[in-house]
């Protein structure tokens, strides 16, 4: 999965129209970035890359790019 594919997958997971998200999008500006949205991201990371991301580290992510970097650095099971 490359970065563009991740952005598209995150759009789908958060039920956002295609083409809306960019790496620079601020997460707090998204209505669907709530507690369920965080779970969707965790599930995406686990399913697509077999990566488990620390919930506390998700909490400090500001942008979509931050989520992508976190996934890249995550621990594979």
């Amino acid at each position: 999965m490359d970065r563009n594919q991740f952005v598209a997958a995150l759009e789908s997971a958060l039920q956002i129209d295609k083409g809306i998200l960019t790496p620079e999008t601020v997460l707090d500006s998204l209505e669907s970035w709530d507690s369920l949205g965080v779970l969707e991201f965790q599930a995406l990371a686990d399913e697509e890359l077999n990566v488990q991301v620390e919930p506390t580290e998700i909490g400090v992510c500001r942008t979509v790019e931050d989520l992508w970097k976190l996934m890249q650095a995550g621990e594979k099971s």
Partner: protein
Amino acid sequence: MTTGRRAALTHVASYLPAGKITNDSLVENYPGWTSEKIEAKTGIRVRNRVADDEFTSDLAIQAAERLFEQSGFDREQVDFLFLVTVTPDQILPFTASTVQNGLKLPTSVGATDLSLACSGYPYALAMAASMIESGRVRNVLLCTADRFTAYADEAEMGSKTLFGDAGTATLVQCVEPGASGAGTIGLCRFGTDGSGAQHLIVPTSGIKGFVGHTTTSASKPTFEMNGPEVFDFTIRTVSRFIADFLAEAELEVDAVDYFVFHQANLFMLEHLRRRMKIPKERFVIHLAEVGNTSSSTIPLALADLSARNSFQPGQTAVLVGFGTGYSWSATRVDFT
């Protein structure tokens, strides 16, 4: 001490209180939510709710009365009573004593509460089986009951959508090898990690709720859940535990007819199912009309399957509980 005796669950009955919490009623005060969104994420349409004067002991008693009626089992023959609950009527005395009295079980019965929630049923099956196999008792009445809405009513919306009230009763008996209509209890395994305690907690539900408070200032016990942490626990710990359990039991996924996991919510269950590569037809989902009923989810699903005559001789079920503590457990059941 082993005696060659085998323990099996022979009957399961359930009780759902009459009150209903629909998705429509939940979203009335939360404009950001819709009934459809709740059902899509949780898999739940309706939860049951107790009447104001109905408590955990009542849920257990009603379920056990149904069990005696449906099975014809003589209550005088009960040797031991377990009540799995995290919503006791009061802390002191333990609620199992209220259940013993309400059911008019003989006073020679041993009775105790097990303070476990979502992991409690496999735990209690293992304890009942151990007591039977050691020769100390023959018949164990295993009740689960939680009036969880008492904690969830004041919780944030995400938690409110999940929980309902219910009680169940299971008869665990000493059986002859190969006895028909029984589910022999096999491998049981457990786990505990108290470092996750704060992520599924009712902080003021015990002594901490009133020491240092006046009665009037004590806050109402409210359930707190850190969803991402609990999901992380499920991915990392529970899925590995299940894989290890199946390996130890020498069971391939295709050799298990029913995977009956704690019915937390559809999102989590489906993720676990896909992660474990379990086919849908072998994976039990019993959420839509009852919700997450804490200690009762697994036996409620078993009671539903049993009522539809689903269990056939030679079939195998794997029961997996996981939740507050953190705590987790699994039990193998083979039907004869």
